[in-house]
Structure formats: structure tokens, C-alpha cells
């Protein structure tokens, strides 16, 4: 609606109010009229104007005063630019007398008025202010809404005005200027800039934005050089020591425009209350969206086009590049399943505001969007526990894993894998503790898995973490692939004195008895575990055979190597620590571990063959001090 048409509409409303109230309103009963309606009260700035010192027959005069004031107000910046942001409500309660008290006169004059307005409030003759604030507030509260500050027109021809919660002004020839000055205080929270009656200010820095003790006007430096803004001495009732932004301003002299500093504060306070996003579609703030549908989101706003409103969209907090129109189409196929937020913002880039740290000039609207896919499962691990906390090398431990499918679709088959690691997070290179397979898990069902494992022999006395990882390779189509794991902690302790051989390779389990295959060019890492052996006096040697493990070879009365020797054994012993049998003879490290590498050359020519490794410890005092278990290796697969 244009300003002209709004005023025409307001004139009609006033006329209707006059005609209606004259016939129906009982004496002294307040009449509430919305004279300017620019939108819902929760989204606009609601001005409430009270009539004080008007007799019943003077209600048309009050209405005329209101019209005159609004016409003047919306011709003055920044109110003109933002005229559509205001609703205006009037409350008329007739007084017995016209006018206001004049205790300053001799003899004093007292009037019987509804809010008991009086000149000479606080000993300042021109300060006309109401005394019966309780009734005035109760009447103002009858308006559909308010912003806490109330305008009062006092039907008295004597020049005057004053402001606090109420912005009061007389209704004489300077009424509009006085009232706009007063609402500068009450609505705009700016200070007086006139410099009387005091001489030199010696107090602290005033809180108001438009007066300062800084001779350079540092407080409004962002405006320096524009619109006549600098720093002029004389403000806030002091001739010296306080400075104002512009040589003259409505907060200093009636008839002036508001300076940029005052106008900026009024504009920000107004926009801090007004919601400039008027309508949003969909109207509901929560939107459910099914894959593969599209959903259009749109808004309308009231920011004047001349203020160059900037529209932006954010999806899950991230700016959507290029999305600057009032409508945004969301493609469900581009989003993960689950909850997302879509926010639109409209920033008023008016020239009235240069600094807006509180973002009062930006209005936002947010939708919570839930993307769902009827074909997707949603696996997660609600719980993962171990029957033991304190463990030792080779300990049998049982994990209990609860797997839930919260999605609308069944899941399966899928695996639940277990990884042991001294650090977080896990990787596929960590010690593998096997897997479970779940053939099928229906929608909205939970399954509980018991997973017994034997911990590795090379476990050290330290803290370890075990991860239960569901569907590591994403075989199941899920709405959220990021919540498929849970971990628990185990505390490793010193364990039994064992002599073992196990593999140190990823995704193998059990480490000391897995069927391990290696093809041409591949490698595996047999590892000797002898935690109680003296690493300074013990060597290990890993032997190899293709002839099985039983009955093995007695090496001493107490040591039998579980390998049946053959030509492969001879070849192995003849090529210890060669490129193929790396570190098959070596020294144990400080933890009693011997790390070897078996690397099958790319052109070995070996066909499928089942072989075994086993290790023997060689001591300085006892040649064969211990033998390990055998581990299997299938070549050429």
C-alpha cells in the first residue's frame, strides 16, 4: 500500500471511529481504535496514542491531532522510509475538563483530566507529563499490542512536552515537532542535543548514542564526513564538554531533520522489533520431505525495494551459493536422510544504518526439514559392552552388541566387525577381532549379538579400544552412514608367559589360526610373541613346511617344533632373511616381539599350496628354549 493510500485508509478508519464512538461509547469509557493497520501486531511496531485532557465532544479534535501527527511523522526520515512497519492504535477516554494542570501559573490552574497531566513536572515549566500513569498504562494495554512506550497528546495550547515511558506533547502549533522529538527519546532512545542550562560537563561517557565526551566524536566515527556528521561541542544540556554529531538535529532544535546518528538508532530499534519476513511457505516450520521429491520454499517481505534487500539461504548453516531469490527449491536427493535446517534471511541494506553488530536489520525464518527415504534402512549401535574390562594377552572375551534398524526399510545381509586399537579412531589396519553377519534386520527392529573372541597374544599392558563397526563397506543403503559404530575400552594387563606365532596383518582373525592366503606379489607378517624371553639373550627363527604340523620335530626333551620338515624347510633355512623370508631370523624387541615378513615374489611360479610356519626361540644357555604354535599360509591363491 502506498503512503497516500495508507493515509486515506487511516482517514476512513478515523471517520468510522468518530461516528461509531459518538453513538456507542459511554461517558468515560475508553474507545480503542486501530487507525493504521500494516500487518499482524507481532510483526509490526505498534504505536499507542492516548488522549489526555480532551472532553468527549473533543474526540474529533483528538482524531485530527493524530492525523496531523502521523502525516508529519511519515514525512520525516527515517519514519517515512519505514512507514509500512507501523501499526497505530488510539485510546480515547474523555476527560471532564479540557487541558492540563498549570501549577506554574499564579494562581495555579488545575483541570480534571483522565491522566492528570501537568506542566512544570519536576520544576521544568514546559515539561508536561501525566501523573496518573496507572490508568494511562491500563488504557494503553487495551490496544491490540504495544511496544512498551506510549504517546500522549495533551489537549492544551501551552507549549510543552516531556518523555519517559510516555512521550507527551501539547497539541498546539508545534505539536508534531515536539512529539516527534519526544518519541526520539522514548522510541528511539536518543538524547537531547541542546546545550542549556548547564555550563561544563565533567561526568562519565553518556550511554546515549548521540552525545559523547569525545571531542572527535569517536562514538559515531563511521559517519564522519557524511551528511554533515562530525563533532560539535554543546549537547546533553551542557554548553561545554559534551559533543553532538551534527550542527543541528531535531533532538536539538524543532524543525530540523534527524541527524544520521539519531536516525540510525531509531532505525535499528524499529527493525529489532519488526519482522520484515511477512509470509513463509510452507507455513509450518517443520517440513517432512520424501526422497526423491522436490519442495519449494518461499517468503515475502516488506523491506522497501529502495533499501536493496539482500536475500540469502542457508542449508544446515552453510550459505547456498547463488540462492538470492525469495523462492528456493530443495532437492531431497541431494541431502542425507534425517533432520536438516533451511534458513532464509532478508537483510535491509538501508543507507540509514552503517553499523549493526546485533543484526537488527536482518530477519530470518527457519524451517526444520526432515528427509526420509522409504527405501533406506538406518542402522546404529545403541549399546556395545564387554564381559571383561581387565584383560591379558590371549584372553577370551565376549562382546555384546546391540544393533538397531530405525529406518523404514529392512537391512541385510550386513556385517558387524570388531577392531582393537590403542588409539582412536579405528582404521582397517588395526587388530581385527572378527565379525558377525546379520542376515536380515527388519525395519524398527533390534538384534543383539554375542561375539566371543580371543584377544591377540601381542596385547600389551595398556588401554585399548574396541570398535563395533556395522556395515563397514556400506552394503546397506542407510539414511545416515555416520552412526554405525560404537566403542568400548579394555585395560590390558601383564599376561601369561607364552611363546606364540600370530599374524600381524589387517582383517585376519583369529590371528594365530586364521587361514591366510598370499598370492604372487603379496606379503604377510608372521610375528613371534615371547613376552617373557630375555630379548638380549634370545633369538627367534621361523621355519616353514608344506608337509603339515603333526607330529612335528622334537628339538629337545621339552621342545617340539610343530612342523614336519621337508624340502621347503631346507630352502627356508638356507634363505633366512632373504627378500622372501624377511627377518625370519632375528632379535626380539623390548616387548618380546619378533616381526617378520613373508613376501611372495610376483613371479614365484608356485601353485596353490598349503604351508605352515612355526618359530623356535634360541637361547644363549639353552639352544632351543621354546617353540610356538604353527600358523597356516596358503600360497598361490
Amino acid at each position, binding site marked *: 500500500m502506498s503512503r497516500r493510500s495508507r493515509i486515506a485508509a487511516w482517514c476512513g478508519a478515523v471517520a468510522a471511529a468518530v461516528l461509531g464512538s459518538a453513538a456507542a461509547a459511554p461517558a468515560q469509557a475508553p474507545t480503542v481504535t486501530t487507525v493504521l493497520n500494516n500487518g499482524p501486531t507481532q510483526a509490526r511496531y505498534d504505536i499507542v496514542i492516548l488522549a489526555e485532557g480532551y472532553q468527549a465532544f473533543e474526540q474529533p479534535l483528538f482524531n485530527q491531532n493524530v492525523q496531523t501527527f502521523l502525516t508529519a511523522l511519515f514525512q520525516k526520515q527515517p519514519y517515512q522510509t519505514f512507514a509500512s512497519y507501523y501499526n497505530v492504535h488510539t485510546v480515547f477516554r474523555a476527560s471532564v475538563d479540557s487541558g492540563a494542570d498549570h501549577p506554574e501559573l499564579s494562581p495555579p490552574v488545575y483541570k480534571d483530566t483522565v491522566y492528570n497531566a501537568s506542566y512544570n513536572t519536576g520544576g521544568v515549566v514546559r*515539561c508536561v507529563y501525566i501523573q496518573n500513569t496507572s490508568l494511562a498504562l491500563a488504557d494503553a494495554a487495551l490496544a491490540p499490542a504495544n511496544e512498551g512506550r506510549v504517546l500522549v497528546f495533551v489537549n492544551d495550547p501551552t507549549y510543552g512536552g516531556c518523555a519517559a*515511558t510516555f512521550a507527551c506533547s501539547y497539541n498546539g502549533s508545534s505539536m508534531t515537532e515536539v512529539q516527534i522529538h519526544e518519541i526520539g527519546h522514548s522510541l528511539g532512545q536518543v538524547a537531547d542535543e541542546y546545550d542549556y542550562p548547564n555550563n561544563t560537563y565533567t561526568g562519565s561517557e553518556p550511554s546515549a548514542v548521540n552525545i559523547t565526551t569525545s571531542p572527535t566524536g569517536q562514538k559515531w566515527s563511521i559517519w564522519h564526513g557524511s551528511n554533515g556528521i562530525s563533532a560539535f561541542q554543546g549537547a546533553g544540556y551542557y554548553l561545554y564538554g559534551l559533543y553532538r554529531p551534527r550542527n543541528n538535529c531535531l533532538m536539538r532544535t524543532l524543525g530540523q531533520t534527524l541527524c544520521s546518528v539519531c536516525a540510525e538508532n531509531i532505525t535499528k530499534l524499529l527493525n529489532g522489533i519488526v519482522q520484515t519476513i511477512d509470509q513463509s511457505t510452507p507455513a509450518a516450520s517443520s517440513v517432512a520431505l520424501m526422497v526423491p521429491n522436490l519442495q519449494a520454499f518461499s517468503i515475502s517481505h516488506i523491506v522497501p525495494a529502495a533499501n536493496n534487500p539482500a536475500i540469502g539461504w542457508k542449508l544446515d548453516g552453510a550459505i547456498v551459493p547463488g540462492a538470492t531469490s525469495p523462492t528456493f527449491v530443495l532437492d531431497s536427493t541431494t541431502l542425507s536422510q534425517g533432520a536438516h535446517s533451511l534458513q532464509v534471511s532478508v537483510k535491509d541494506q538501508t543507507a540509514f544504518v552503517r553499523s549493526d553488530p*546485533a*543484526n537488527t536489520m536482518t530477519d530470518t525464518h527457519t524451517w526444520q526439514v526432515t528427509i526420509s527415504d522409504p527405501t533406506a534402512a538406518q542402522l546404529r549401535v545403541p549399546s556395545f559392552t564387554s564381559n571383561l574390562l581387565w584383560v591379558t594377552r590371549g584372553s577370551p572375551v565376549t562382546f555384546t552388541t546391540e544393533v538397531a534398524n530405525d529406518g523404514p526399510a529392512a537391512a541385510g545381509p550386513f556385517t558387524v566387525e570388531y577392531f582393537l586399537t590403542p588409539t582412536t579412531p579405528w582404521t582397517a589396519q588395526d587388530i581385527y577381532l572378527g565379525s558377525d553377519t546379520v542376515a536380515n534386520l527388519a525395519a524398527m527392529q533390534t538384534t543383539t549379538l554375542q561375539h566371543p573372541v580371543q584377544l591377540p597374544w601381542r596385547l600389551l599392558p595398556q588401554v585399548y579400544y574396541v570398535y563395533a563397526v556395522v556395515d563397514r563397506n556400506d552394503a546397506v543403503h542407510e539414511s545416515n552412514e555416520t552412526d554405525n559404530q560404537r566403542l568400548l575400552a579394555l585395560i590390558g594387563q601383564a599376561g601369561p608367559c607364552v611363546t606364540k606365532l600370530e599374524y600381524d596383518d589387517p582383517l585376519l582373525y583369529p590371528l594365530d589360526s586364521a587361514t591366510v592366503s598370499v598370492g604372487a606379489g603379496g606379503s604377510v607378517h608372521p610375528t613371534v610373541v615371547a613376552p617373557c624371553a630375555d630379548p638380549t639373550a634370545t633369538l627367534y627363527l621361523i621355519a616353514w613346511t608344506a608337509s603339515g604340523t603333526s607330529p612335528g620335530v622334537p628339538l629337545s626333551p621339552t621342545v617340539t617344533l610343530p612342523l614336519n620338515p621337508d624340502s621347503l624347510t631346507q630352502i627356508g633355512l638356507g634363505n633366512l632373511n632373504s627378500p622372501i623370508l624377511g627377518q625370519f631370523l632375528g632379535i626380539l624387541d623390548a616387548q618380546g616381539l619378533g616381526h617378520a615378513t613373508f613376501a611372495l615374489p610376483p613371479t614365484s611360479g608356485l601353485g596353490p599350496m*598349503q604351508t605352515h610356519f612355526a618359530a623356535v626361540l*634360541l637361547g*644363549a644357555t639353552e639352544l632351543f628354549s621354546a617353540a610356538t604354535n604353527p600358523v597356516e599360509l596358503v600360497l598361490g591363491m
Partner: protein
Amino acid sequence: MQLSHAVAVGAAVAALVWTFSVGSAGSTGSVGGAGSAGGPGSPVAPAAPPTPPEPPRANGHYVLVVEGDRDRLTITSANAKTDPWAGVPVGFASDWTLCVRDGGGAVLAEVPLDLTPFATSRAEKGQPVQVQGCIVRDSRIAMLVSVPRFDTAASYTFSHRDAGADRTLGTVTGDAVRELAGGGR
């Protein structure tokens, strides 16, 4: 490798070579265990997730008349409005608040109060109205406060955070506010 180690290795390898050369080729050993362990358990119905309590919904708003002074505030009038509460102005904060609670003590809303027009220092309490220029400062507080209207509101408590401590300035029951609003529009 130390000399003693080297001697031991030489002896050990020689011994092993000799031992293995006279030994017979044994039978093929058994194949190691499978790579997976355990199995799926029986599906069970999931435990119903706890339903979060529905957040309280405001039913329009109240326009309250609040009166008193820096040490005591009360509600002297209330008007119920069907329009939604407009909320707190962007960027506005205050040490003075009105807290609306339900019967269980849960906070339904906390509304900062704009007392900047009033004389709220301890020294100003009870002093007559002061006017500087055309600004009125009164230690008697009389103001409008808009708050969301909750059917379950049990108390309205005014507080002032002063030097890090909250001072309670007055509490009005929800019933009293509803009664005050009975004659509202």
C-alpha cells in the same frame, strides 16, 4: 648381531638342517579357523524411545501493567490478547527480568524488562520525579510488559541481577494474573 648370537645361530641352523633332513614328511595339518565368529541374535522389538515432553505453547499474549520500584514490582493489570507474543527485540538484554514458571517450577518464558526510563539506583529510590531537559526520571516504576500467555503458568516472578546475585522483587501467581485479565479484552 653379537658373536655369541652368531655362534648360536650357526649351531641352531645346522642342528635344524640335520634334524629336518632325517625327519619324515608328515601329514598335512588341519586348516585354521574361520574368519568370522558369532552370529546374529534373534530380532527383538525395540524399546520405545522416550518421548520428549511437548514444549509449552503460548496462547496469545498478555499485556501486563507492572508497577513498583527498584525493590518491589507487581502486576496491577493484565489484558489477554489473542495475537501471538512478538518476542524480545533483537539485541535487547536486561538485568531486570520477569520469569514465567509452571507449577513444577519449569521456566516457560523469561522476559527482559526495559527499565531504562526509570530511576533505579539505590540512592534514587523514593526521590521525587527528576526532569532534565525534557526527560523524566521517576523512581516509581510503571510500565507495560508483554509476555507470552501460557495456560499452565503458575507464577510470574520479577528479578534483578545485581552484582552477580539475583534479587527477587516480587511474585504474582498465575491465578491472580488470570483473574486480573478476566476483564481484559
